[in-house]
């Protein structure tokens, strides 16, 4: 079902859906529509400053009028991701009264529904704990230890202590490695900073051979060098992207659960997603930790998250069209061609 009344127009003219995409609700819908990518809202909240629950629905109604419904030409590579079949798969439920490990289980179920149609699930909104439900569903479909989790974050999220819980916003990656959902060496982290990990966690991370790209590396070696390292590490692998919006610099993304200065720029984030989309088979992605209650009136953080998703989709489409260089640019956008 297409939410757009008009053949041509901006998002404002249609019912609010993710990127203005048509809606689908079941595995059968996804199969019938031959849907390439299903955007699924996650409404889990797990943050000290509440609001992540509202991220998914806010992403359907951003203060953003000049974006096209589920399509548009990416200006870096000249590729229209509207050639992909994109659907809005609704939201995963969140029970306020339930313990969040229970809610993560519902994430698993809905993601599994999408995977059953061989559609790429892209989680929108929620908070980082949901990643565990993505990883269990992916491990069930592709096998444990078969895929990479590319983790963008200010924080390492392999905290040793659960304070009663096993899986929470700061510990889910430790449990994922302990349970064998992913290998330690298949966790690639980008943007780490702040005053952690603590020594015990850092020691554990070393033993697991986690590949952490700290902001220190980006500052010292430069972004281009680190990007090349990341792409080399990812080469040939199935990739699950777990994108914590606090990995971005707060100047670009102020409305996050746990702000920390000196993160990735908007350009770096957009480039990384485009490049990985071109180079790798993307099996799932999720963009989390957006707290719309902390966003400005122009929904700056939300619009960036929207563009990050669109950039990934452009990369995925470029790969389909046979573009193989992850650092490809459309020549027309580099020099005057006439």
């Amino acid at each position, binding site marked *: 079902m297409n939410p757009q009344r008009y053949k*041509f127009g901006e998002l404002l003219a249609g019912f609010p859906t993710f990127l203005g995409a048509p*809606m689908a609700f079941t595995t059968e819908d996804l199969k019938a529509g031959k849907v390439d990518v299903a955007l699924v809202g996650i409404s889990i909240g797990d943050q000290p400053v509440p609001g992540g629950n509202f991220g998914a629905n806010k992403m359907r109604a951003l203060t953003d009028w000049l974006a096209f419904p589920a399509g548009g030409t990416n200006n870096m590579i000249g590729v*229209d991701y509207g050639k992909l079949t994109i659907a809005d798969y609704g939201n995963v439920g969140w029970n306020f009264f339930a313990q969040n490990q229970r809610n993560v289980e519902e994430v698993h179920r809905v993601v599994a529904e999408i995977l059953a149609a061989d559609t790429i699930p892209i989680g929108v909104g929620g908070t980082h704990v949901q990643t565990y439900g993505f990883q*269990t569903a992916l491990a069930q479909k592709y096998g444990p230890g078969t895929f990479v989790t590319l983790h963008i974050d200010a924080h390492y999220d392999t905290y040793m202590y*659960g304070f009663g819980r*096993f899986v929470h916003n700061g510990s889910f990656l430790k449990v994922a490695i302990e349970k064998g959902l992913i290998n330690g060496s298949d966790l690639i982290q980008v943007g780490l900073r702040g005053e952690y990990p603590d020594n015990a966690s850092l020691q554990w991370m070393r033993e697991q051979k986690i590949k952490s790209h700290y902001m220190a590396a980006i500052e010292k070696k430069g972004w281009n060098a680190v990007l090349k390292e990341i792409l080399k590490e990812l080469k040939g692998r199935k990739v699950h992207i777990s994108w914590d919006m606090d990995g971005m610099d707060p100047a670009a993304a102020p409305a996050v659960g746990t702000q920390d200065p000196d993160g990735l720029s908007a350009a770096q984030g957009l480039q990384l997603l485009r490049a990985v989309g071109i180079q790798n088979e993307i099996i799932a992605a999720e963009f989390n930790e957006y707290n719309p209650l902390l966003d400005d009136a122009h929904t700056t953080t939300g619009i960036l998250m929207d563009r990050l998703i669109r950039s990934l989709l452009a990369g995925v489409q470029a790969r389909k069209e046979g573009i193989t260089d992850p650092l490809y640019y459309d020549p027309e956008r580099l020099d005057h061609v006439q």
Partner: protein
Amino acid sequence: MKTTGCIILLAVVAMAFAFPAAVLSAEKSTLKAGIPDEWAPWKDPNNPNVIILQDDKDKFFERRERPGIQSERRAS
């Protein structure tokens, strides 16, 4: 702009065929199973409907023996 318009138009037409009446189906998903027990350490193995706590090494609200000016260094 013209190309984009055409593509959107094509997408709209394609969608009309691609999404039959089943779109608004209220049928339940056939994939009811949740996270397998071996990956869900919070489930009590004897009764998966009971949530267990992580081991008791996690102490809540542990107080200092003698609150004072000189704070202990962090253990790590």
